């Protein structure tokens, strides 16, 4: 699996309240969440993300609440992948579960500038910064997580597993 796009950069401790403010959570429409993605810190984000971007961030990306609407908002806004020094664990799992690739990449915040063109090779955990001609190594995702992402998310994965008659294994 390979994704590419221009980098959009943020700092440390980007929380779910700024990714999608609570006032939009009464909606069940992903396109509404997408319209307000990152509204708390970057109201211009939905316009930038439309062409398909890769979010690059520092430590603890997605901290705060368990709202899955946060990664959903980013995904529907056009985010193809998120690279960060580290993630808040619920956000990390939520992203995988909705089929949005997330990779921990030590040092990534220093090795990417806003607007750099990135290609991410998910199976290898390798990032190529095409603009700088540099390779950045990420922590490779375990195979079972790659499979969930490849299937398009946990629900699709579960349906596949159940159809294959593997019972309750997820």
């Amino acid at each position, binding site marked *: 699996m390979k994704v590419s796009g221009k980098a959009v950069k943020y700092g*440390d*401790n980007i*929380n779910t*309240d*700024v990714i999608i*403010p*609570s*006032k939009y*959570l*009464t*909606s*069940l429409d992903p396109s509404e969440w997408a319209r307000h993605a990152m509204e*708390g*810190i970057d109201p211009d984000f939905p316009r930038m993300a439309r062409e398909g971007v890769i979010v690059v961030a520092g*430590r*603890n990306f997605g*901290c*705060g*609440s*368990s*709202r*899955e*609407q946060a990664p959903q908002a980013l995904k529907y806004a056009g985010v193809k992948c998120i690279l960060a020094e*580290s993630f*808040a*664990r*619920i956000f990390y*799992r*939520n992203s995988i*579960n*909705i089929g949005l690739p997330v990779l921990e990449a030590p040092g990534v915040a220093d090795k990417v500038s806003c607007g750099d063109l990135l290609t991410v090779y998910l199976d290898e955990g390798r990032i190529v910064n095409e603009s700088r001609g540099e390779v950045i190594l990420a922590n490779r995702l*375990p195979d*079972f997580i790659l499979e969930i992402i490849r299937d398009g*998310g*946990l*629900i699709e994965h*579960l*349906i596949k597993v*159940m159809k294959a008659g593997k019972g*309750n*294994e*997820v």
Partner: protein
Amino acid sequence: MTISEKILAYSSGKDYVKPGDIVDARVDAAMANEITGPLAIQMFKRIGLKKVWDNRRIILVLDHQVPADSVKSAELHRIMRAFASEQNIPCLYDVGDGGICHQVMVERGHVKPGELIVGADSHTCTYGALGAFATGIGSTEMAAVFATGRIWLKVPETMKVDVSGSFREPVSPKDLILYVIGRVGADGAIYRAIEFTGSTIRDMSISGRLTLCNMAVEMGAKTAIIEPDEKAIQYVGERANGPFKEFRSDPDARYEKTLEFNVDDLEPMVACPHSVDNVKPVKDVEGVEVNQAFLGSCTNGRLEDLELAAKILKGRRIKRGVRMLVTPASTEVYLQALKRGLLEVFIKAGACVCNPTCGACFGGHMGLLAAGEICVSSSNRNFVGRMGSPEAMIYLASPATVAASAVEGKITDPRRFLGDSM
């Protein structure tokens, strides 16, 4: 093994696990509220199963926007009720019945020591106060739990937080957890379990333990846990049915690290805008004028919290121009506060007593902030925009500091009203 490792081993049918292992674990209880539940229900329906794995182990709580503040909220509530009815789920806590989900979970007997509990809300880690391993998950994952009753989990490293000494009134567990978060940082416990130990924890009430464990997620922790003791067993015995297992950490259990704190000289603390780890002694920020004082939330909306605030508010008036909101964490807390005359103290002081809800803390309804306003709050997050306008500012503090600040109209050290003179 640590208590966390033992619970994860037990729930995944293993004799031994170590940090880093991935386990496929059996869930004892699964909780969702009306913000995360409807999305989980949608996802569950996509799976195509007719029945949930166990209707008696699913707990649904309406709490974030109750009573419905908009037609959209009402629709979310309707989806939750319809699902409970279709799936024959007996534990749906509707408007007026329950309260804030985490308080409802512990108070109504849905949490027992040794259990593995998942909740579609980040503050699910609260239940560690009763010796359970409890962690927050998202909606899609909850749908998979509804379907299978199982979840994959990575066994976390455990960070021990050992606390000794005695609090000096009005310093409380909230001041301790703010202090710990200030030291550890907003991502200092990321992916880890925090185990609270020591004489201060043993002496602490269940209410205080719930406050400590509740805010572990603000350091990035997967969960927080306290070994069950007589107090915890008694609390559970009064509320829950059925057997449970009491796990304790082995004397030779391995901890990633141990942090030691002593609370003898701990002062009232406050987390300043806009991050939970921006923690200072209250006395350093005294004088910041406030527009709103909020007492409530899953962190500090329990009877003990209301009692502490009422001690300061009794016979006093809230400063003119400041509004104070009090939201008891549950119907049970509300009723107890009523019986003990606390609500009368609040009302006479000029506070607005609201029904149990996540409302103001979550920035959903009932007490949002306008641009430029400042709120001192007993809740758990002070992120930009958390309680309304992104141009508002939130200071997190203890119930005592909230009450003292409401009286003075500015951030105030509660020791000016209670305990030792400053």
